[in-house]
C-alpha cells in the first residue's frame, strides 16, 4: 500500500558537513561550500550532476547569523546549472526544503537536489545581542508583534509558555526532564565534531541558571557556526550511486491547527500530533519499528513532546519513558539524538539530525554507532505552531 506517495521515490544519497564551531575561521559562504562539496562527492556525483538546489529559510538580511547563505549565493559560488531551486521560510519547519525537493523531483524538474542549511549564530552573537524577534528603533510587525511589548527577547520565552503548560498538564518532573540533556551530552562525548563533549550530571543540570521556567540553561540548544548539506536523488538515480540510498519513507507536512504563536490549539502538545499522524498514515511502518529517534531539540521539551506525538509513548508519559535515561541511551531500546543533537553538538537546526541519520545508517558513527543495523529512523523539526516530520528507511 501507499506506494503512490512521492517521497518514496526520493532518497538521500550523500551528506556533508563543514567544521562546526563556536566561532568559525571561515566565512558562512565558505562553510556552505565545504558542506556542499563534501555531500556531492559523498554521493558519487560532481557539480555538473546537481540540477536542483533548496534551502530553509533562505538568506535573511538580519545580523543574527540565522541564515546568512541562500540558494542564489551557493548557486553562483558553485556555478550550478539548475532545473529548479527554492529557499523560503513559510514551510512545515526546517525540513520544508526537503519536502519541496520531493515535489520538484517528482515533477521532473530535477534529479539530484543539493539541500543545505547554514548557520553563523556563534559569530553573530559575539558582535551583538542577536535578537531575531526585535529590531531596535523599528516597530514590530508580523505574527510576533502580538508579543512585542511584553519583554519577549527570545524564542525561549514563547516556547517556555508551551513547556510550562506541558509540565502543568503532564506532571513531568525536573529530574525526568534533565535526562534529555544528560543523554545528549553523553552522546556528544562520542562525537568528535560536537561542541560540548564533557558529560553533565543531574547536579550540573540543576545548578545551571533558569532561563524562563521551566527552561534551564541545559535545556537550550547551542548557537554555532556551521553548514550541513545533503543530496536528495530520484530513486532510480539513487540506486546507481555508491551509498545505500536512505529512502524517504513518509513525511508529515500538514497545518491543521491554528498557525499562531498565541492561539495555537493545544498549548501543551503544539502542532506536532497531526503532523506525526500524517506521517504514519503514509507508511506501513509503526513506531515500534523505529530504531533511532532524531527529534527536534531546539529545547529539550521539543524532544519530550515528539516522543509522545510520534507515539513512542503515551500522552503525558514521556517523563516515565525517559526516567533514568536508559531507554533513550545509545544502547537503549530507542536511542535519541545520538550525535548529541543541537543541545550539545550544535544548533545545526534539524539538518544535523538528517546528517546523523545517514551517518548511523551507513555505519560511519564510530564510537556512537548504534548496534545492529539502524534501518528505520524517525526525525522531526520545529515546535510551537509549526512542525514537520520524516521517516527515513535504509533501502
Amino acid at each position: 500500500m501507499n506506494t503512490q506517495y512521492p517521497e518514496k521515490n526520493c532518497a538521500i544519497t550523500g551528506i556533508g558537513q563543514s567544521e562546526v564551531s563556536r566561532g568559525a575561521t571561515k566565512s558562512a559562504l565558505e562553510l556552505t561550500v565545504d558542506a556542499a562539496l563534501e555531500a556531492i562527492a559523498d554521493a558519487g556525483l560532481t557539480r555538473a550532476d546537481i540540477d536542483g538546489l533548496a534551502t530553509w529559510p533562505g538568506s535573511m538580511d538580519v545580523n543574527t547569523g540565522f541564515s546568512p547563505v541562500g540558494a542564489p549565493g551557493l548557486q553562483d559560488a558553485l556555478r550550478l546549472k539548475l532545473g529548479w531551486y527554492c529557499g523560503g521560510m513559510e514551510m512545515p519547519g526546517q525540513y520544508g526544503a526537503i519536502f519541496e525537493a520531493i515535489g520538484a523531483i517528482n515533477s521532473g524538474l530535477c534529479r539530484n537536489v543539493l539541500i543545505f542549511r547554514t548557520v553563523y549564530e556563534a559569530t553573530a552573537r559575539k558582535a551583538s545581542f542577536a535578537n531575531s524577534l526585535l529590531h531596535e528603533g523599528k516597530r514590530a510587525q508580523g505574527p510576533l508583534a502580538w508579543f512585542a511589548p511584553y519583554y519577549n527577547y527570545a524564542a525561549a520565552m514563547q516556547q517556555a509558555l508551551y513547556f510550562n503548560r506541558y509540565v502543568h498538564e503532564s506532571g513531568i518532573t525536573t529530574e525526568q526532564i534533565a535526562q534529555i540533556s544528560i543523554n545528549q551530552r553523553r552522546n556528544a562525548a562520542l562525537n568528535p565534531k560536537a561542541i560540548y563533549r564533557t558529560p553533565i550530571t543531574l547536579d550540573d543540570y540543576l545548578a545551571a541558571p533558569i532561563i524562563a521556567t521551566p527552561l534551564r540553561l541545559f535545556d537550550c540548544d547551542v548557537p554555532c557556526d556551521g553548514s550541513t548539506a545533503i543530496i536528495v536523488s530520484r530513486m532510480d538515480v539513487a540506486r546507481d550511486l555508491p551509498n545505500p540510498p536512505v529512502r524517504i519513507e513518509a513525511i508529515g507536512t500538514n497545518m491543521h491547527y491554528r498557525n499562531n504563536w498565541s492561539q495555537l490549539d493545544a498549548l501543551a502538545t503544539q502542532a506536532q500530533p497531526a503532523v506525526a499522524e500524517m506521517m504514519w498514515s503514509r507508511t506501513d511502518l509503526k513506531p515500534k519499528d523505529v530504531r533511532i529517534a532524531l527529534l527536534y531539540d531546539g529545547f529539550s521539551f521539543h524532544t519530550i513532546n515528539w516522543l509522545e506525538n510520534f507515539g513512542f509513548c503515551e500522552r503525558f508519559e514521556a517523563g516515565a519513558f525517559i526516567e533514568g535515561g536508559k531507554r533513550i541511551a545509545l544502547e537503549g531500546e530507542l536511542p535519541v539524538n545520538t550525535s548529541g543533537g543541537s543541545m550539545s553538538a550544535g544548533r545545526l537546526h534539524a539538518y544535523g539530525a538528517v546528517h546523523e541519520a545517514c551517518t548511523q545508517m551507513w555505519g560511519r558513527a564510530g564510537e556512537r554507532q548504534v548496534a545492529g543495523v539502524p534501518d528505520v529512523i524517525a526525525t522531526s523539526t520545529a515546535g510551537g505552531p509549526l512542525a514537520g516530520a520524516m521517516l527515513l528507511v535504509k533501502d
Partner: protein
Amino acid sequence: MSTQIPPRALPQLDLDNKAFWTGGQNGELLIHKCGDCGYYVHPPVNFCPECDGRDVEPQPVSGRGTVETFTVVHKQWVPELRVPYVLALVTIEEQDDVRLATNIVNCEAEDVRFGMPVRVLFERHEDVWTPLFEPDSAG
C-alpha cells in the same frame, strides 16, 4: 504600573490591530466580534471563520480572564531588565480561544498560577495602550 526600565517594544499599528492597541485610551479592551454570530475573532480581521460573516467590529470585553499559561523569566536579557518577571497567555473570559500575550504585573512572579483570575490594566507608550493583566481578587 510596571517598574521595568527598558522601553517596551511597540507594535506597528494597522487597520486591523489599531483598536486592540489603542482601546486602553478609553479604558477598554477591544476585541473584534462578529455581529452575526457573536464569535470573537482574534487576531482581528473582518471575517468570521465561524459563520462567514463580514460584520466583524471591535467591541469592548470585560477585561477579565484567566492565566492559560505563563513563564517566569529569570534571564536578564538586557542590563536594565528587572527580573524575574512573568510572560503569560491570558484567555479572555468571554471566549476560550482568544488568548492574549501579556505580562502579569502587580504581584510577585512566584505567585502566578495556572487558571489564576486576572483583569486588564493599560500602560501607555506613545500611541499604544499596552494591555497588561494583574490578579483579580474579585474573580
